């Protein structure tokens, strides 16, 4: 199978994309949403939208310095500022209600900084727990497979591809300047779920083929297993990516970024389960036999 044969090319591609993702994360940093760092966001709709300068001046005089103003849709304005109390919020809405203009408050959220910090910690716990849970499960599920490489190595490789699959979309997201919020974490965790799904299907076939002893050469066995599961991997990802595309184009505004990152992540996840995970098994086996 060409994938096993030319594995170095795919490894290099992945190493470069991961390096670029890290570079993007290191230079641009995560643009944390208000649910992670605390703050307020208000969305209002006008019959005739005032320009940015009018808004900035009004906000500054009312004591909302440093508020970020963003135009949305045709007549909507989104403003981000520090966490506001109820009194502050009333002050803010009255500041935004200009004379002669009809203004409607569509959405408001304010999240205290402690809630944000707590969520951040919890997000890390969740990611680590999912990885641990999956490694342990795979080591268990493949426990009868010990030749030529032991079951926990399947788990380790799955973890490596999992990390690959969340680092790259995270990098793309940072590079696009998108906001990192709770849904972003949910998306990363879902990507892990789906990515491991793909990897397991390929590994399961390898497990079966090893039992059937279809070839004495490990690399050939992996290659044949890949060929047998290839159509399935592509078709499943295709259906999932199709539904995610409908969610992106037709779905609610609040889940647009969510479906975008899932779309990227599932694409990457399929790529890594086929082009990275299984070739890595071959590499491990080769190292072992050399020693």
């Amino acid at each position, binding site marked *: 199978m060409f994938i096993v044969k030319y594995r170095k090319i795919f490894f290099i591609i992945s190493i470069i994309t991961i390096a670029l993702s890290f570079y993007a994360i290191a230079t641009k940093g995560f643009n944390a949403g208000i649910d992670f760092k605390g703050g307020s966001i208000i969305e209002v709709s006008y019959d005739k939208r005032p320009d940015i300068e009018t808004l900035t001046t009004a906000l500054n005089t009312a004591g909302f310095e440093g508020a970020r103003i963003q135009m949305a849709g045709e007549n909507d304005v989104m403003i981000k500022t520090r966490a506001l109390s109820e009194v502050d919020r009333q002050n803010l809405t009255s500041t935004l209600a200009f004379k002669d203009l009809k203004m409607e408050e569509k959405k408001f959220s304010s999240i205290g900084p402690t809630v944000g910090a707590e969520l951040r910690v919890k997000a890390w*716990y969740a990611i680590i727990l999912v990885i641990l849970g999956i490694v342990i499960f795979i080591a268990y599920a493949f426990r009868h497979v010990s030749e030529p490489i032991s079951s926990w190595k399947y788990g380790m490789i799955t973890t490596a591809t999992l990390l690959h699959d969340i680092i790259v979309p995270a990098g793309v997201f940072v590079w696009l300047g998108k906001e990192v919020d709770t849904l972003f974490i949910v998306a990363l*965790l879902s990507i892990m779920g789906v990515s491991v799904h793909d990897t*397991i299907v390929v590994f399961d076939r390898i497990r079966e083929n090893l039992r059937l002893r279809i070839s004495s050469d490990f690399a050939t066995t992996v290659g044949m297993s890949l060929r047998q599961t290839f159509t399935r991997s592509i078709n499943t990802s295709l259906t999932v990516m199709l539904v995610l595309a409908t969610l992106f184009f037709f779905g609610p505004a609040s889940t647009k970024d969510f479906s975008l990152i899932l779309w990227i992540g599932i694409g990457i996840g399929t790529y890594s389960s086929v082009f990275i995970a299984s070739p890595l098994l071959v590499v491990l086996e080769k190292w072992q036999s050399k020693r």
Partner: protein
Amino acid sequence: MAIMWKTRIGALLLLIIGAGIGYFIYASEPKLHEGKTVLGQTFAEKFPFKLGLDLSGGVQLVYQADVSSIKPGEVKNAMDALRDVIERRINTFGVSEPIVQIEEKGGITGPVEERLLVELPGITDVKMAVDMIGQTPKLEFMKERSKEELDAYNKAVEKFNADKEAGKPLVISAELLAGPYVATDLNGRFLERAVLEFDQTTREPIVSIVFNKQGSDMFAELTKENVNKTIAIYLDRELGNPDPISAPVVREAILGGKAQITGKFTAQEAKTLVGRLNSGALPVDKLDLLSTQTISAPLGAQALMAGVWAGVWGLVIVAAFLVLWYRLPGLVSVVALAIYVVIMLALFKFMGVTLTAAGIAGFILSMGMAVDANILIFERTKEELRKGHGVHDAIREGFARAWTSIRDSNISSIITAVILFWFGTSLIKGFALVFGLGVIVSMFTAISVSRTLLFALPFSGHGAVVRTLFGSGFFKLK
């Protein structure tokens, strides 16, 4: 042949049940097709979809309860009582289906914090909501200061009055600011109930209060220590009522935990006070508003419609792909997918799953994943057909061999869903629940529904028709 017919009857039953559930869902949402607004008349209408705030519009408030003065063992009771109090306040307001939940935060990630989550669908006026919840009558019992302090206070008052008469600049001294009374531990938290009564002779309104067990003991102690002294009863002292509503002199120790407030109030004022005290004494020290979210109803409706349409289009596109690529088995899996969708929708209704935009996204994602098991099975079946097996054998083998990967991959998805659920704020819990349910239900539909339907098909052997119908994509089975 008998087995064949059994399978066909089973397949027919599955289709009928699927259609039945589908009809039930249709009938239970008369809002959508008849424009009815009053629900709950027929059996089906008793199970409407529960919509989260982001789809129905409304206010979400998260409060932090200050429980620092409550003993650790009693925090849970205090929080339960707090929830009841807030619920009562909201109910007097007539909000339909409010949610008041206790959330215990921290433990692993920091000190335990007690939170109260309040969701008010349909209300978008945050100020009104905050006022409604925050109207806390705070009843305090205070005792006289010590002799020396009281003398200092009285002197300060005299000086103040003298200055005022003389027209000198007024200075508020520390003694004056402190007031003649000092706080005690007794407050409205220890109230069991308040009753409105009228004085037998003067017909003046009296507010009788009954303390709970702990409050009774504290009150007995307080009155015993302060015989012939004044006990001042304050209401909302920190909210602009600096004078006590009543300051009776204690004649003797009062046992039995009953007290009366006679003040200068009208019957109406006394009645309101009783009402507020009964619905109101907050069992915790303080409630702080941590976060607020509002979503206007039109915005919510817009998000809901967008979610529904995304789901419909997702289903149509996946169905088209399956039929075009996998032909006859593809058609079967579309039927299985339709049954999957109606089962999930029915579960949402019966389990009362609150649907949010994230939940709908999870559901749409799960439709894609549900197809995975079918694709695995079809690919395996095709392999077996290529080996020259007859249709039925190929399908049987295909299912058997695909099973281990379906099982293992779905278990890992369930692990993810469980951790997501644990991680959850309400937004994520909705997503995780839908995602986890989806994985389990899709395993069922892929294995039992697709299987039964495929076996019920009137094809056998390995002829040209079979090869065409069971082939896929651009390839022809040899």
